[in-house]
């Protein structure tokens, strides 16, 4: 598989507190990569560095053989069109209908005419298993789980190369969590999209990930495919695995 993205020794501090302490890893095209870790280990910061919401203090982010970490806001437009971030919160615009929420990004970042745009909106809604009847509603009128799906549709409609999920199952019940995880897997395979999922859900990672990276205190403590992670001797990874075993039993 071809490499699509590479993080090279990424460091990031906030007010003197080092959050990322030299993170390096590669992502292959079409893979589902899970970044696991406890809260506050810098997982979300890593994603925000990729889309330019934050800039690394040092290191490089290589996307299509170019270091995008030094890109200007203008140059980042291309990156953001191809690397879409699904936020931890649904982040839907309250004042817009659901249709406008999905179409907003398309209007801003593409040159589609109204007919093409309408088709794209409805296709992406169908892809996340939502019905067209809800399109005229405002975000407050649908459930949190549906809002999460809609936020995925909003990113998906741009046909991104990489989908980034920041804790996509936070605040969801177990059934909805399972449904969202399966949705990520299905979308990734169907559209051949590379997915990077920030999570603390090892159970889900073992289910659908191709590659798992475990962060602890701003450093990678383990990375590899599912089989390697299952045999890991790293204490944090063993704790995560134990939680899965406990939940299953």
């Amino acid at each position, binding site marked *: 598989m071809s490499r699509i993205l590479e993080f090279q020794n990424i460091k990031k501090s906030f007010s003197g507190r080092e959050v990322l302490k030299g993170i390096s890893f590669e992502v292959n095209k079409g893979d589902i990569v899970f970044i696991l870790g406890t809260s506050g280990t810098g997982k979300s910061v890593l994603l925000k560095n990729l889309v330019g919401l934050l800039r690394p203090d040092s290191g490089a982010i290589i996307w299509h053989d170019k270091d995008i970490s030094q890109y200007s806001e203008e140059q980042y*437009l291309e990156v953001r069109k191809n690397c879409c*971030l699904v936020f931890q*919160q649904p*982040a*839907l615009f*309250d004042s817009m209908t659901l249709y406008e929420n999905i179409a907003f990004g398309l209007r801003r970042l593409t040159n589609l005419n109204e007919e093409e745009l309408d088709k794209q909106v409805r296709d992406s809604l169908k892809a996340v298993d939502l019905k067209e009847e809800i399109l005229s509603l405002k975000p407050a009128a649908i459930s949190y789980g549906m809002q999460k799906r809609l936020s995925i549709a909003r990113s998906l409609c741009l046909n991104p190369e990489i989908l980034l999920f920041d804790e996509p199952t936070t605040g969801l019940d177990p059934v909805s969590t399972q449904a969202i995880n399966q949705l990520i897997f299905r979308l990734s395979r169907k559209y051949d999209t590379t997915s990077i999922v920030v999570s603390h859900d090892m159970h889900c990672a073992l289910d659908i990930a191709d590659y798992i990276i475990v962060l602890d205190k701003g450093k990678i403590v383990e990375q590899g495919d599912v089989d390697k992670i299952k045999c890991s001797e790293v204490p944090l990874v063993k704790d995560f695995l134990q939680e899965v075993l406990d939940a299953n039993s």
Partner: protein
Amino acid sequence: MLASVNQLLQIVAIGVLSIFRPPYRWKNYLREISFVGSESFLVVIICVSFAAIVTIIEASYHMTLVVQSDAMVPGFASLLIIRELGSVITALLIGSRVGAGWAAEVASMKISEQIDALKLLRIDPIKYLVSPKIVGSVLGTLLLGLAANIICLICAMFVTKLKLGYPMPTFISMTKLFVEVQDLVFASLKLMTFGFVVPIIACFYGFRAKSGAEGVGSATTQAVVSISVAIIFLDFVLSYVFSHFY
């Protein structure tokens, strides 16, 4: 501290300049004008009406006590209403009602990552959120303030007739004698200045909101307090400056 000043100046500069740069989101402008004007109308009218009643009663009592005549009350009260009461009460009410709403709106958007979502769509949050609010607030406060002044004067006229027994034409002629065109111009300038600071301060605290419901609450409280202090302070500064032209 320096970072806060920098952020505030950024909001002012980008917020103002973006008003004149396309794309012009007319719908957003109209929505904000309506939010400021129509939804605050009733509360402003009620408050300035009572302020007018109190002004007449207090002025007549003290003037009678000091100069044994209340003949100057209509003119004096009209001047006070135009120069101070109408503008300041309107601005304070808009600041607490509209400013709180805007601070909470922006803070909620911040903590629910909607601001980040805007940035990803290459939309400047200041242009998108602050500029329409500046236009809405400046125009809305001006229109509402002028309406409040008129209602306040009408109220004062009725109370003058009922309490002091002066006929309405006397009130009008005294008002014409005391109030000059420049008073109306200065009142309008005050209203526009107050209208300008409300969205700036509200959005400033909204953008700085910390996560959680507490963060939104705290941002809203800080915004309302700061807006009130800013209005009182600016009222002093502007009154001092304008006093050189009287």
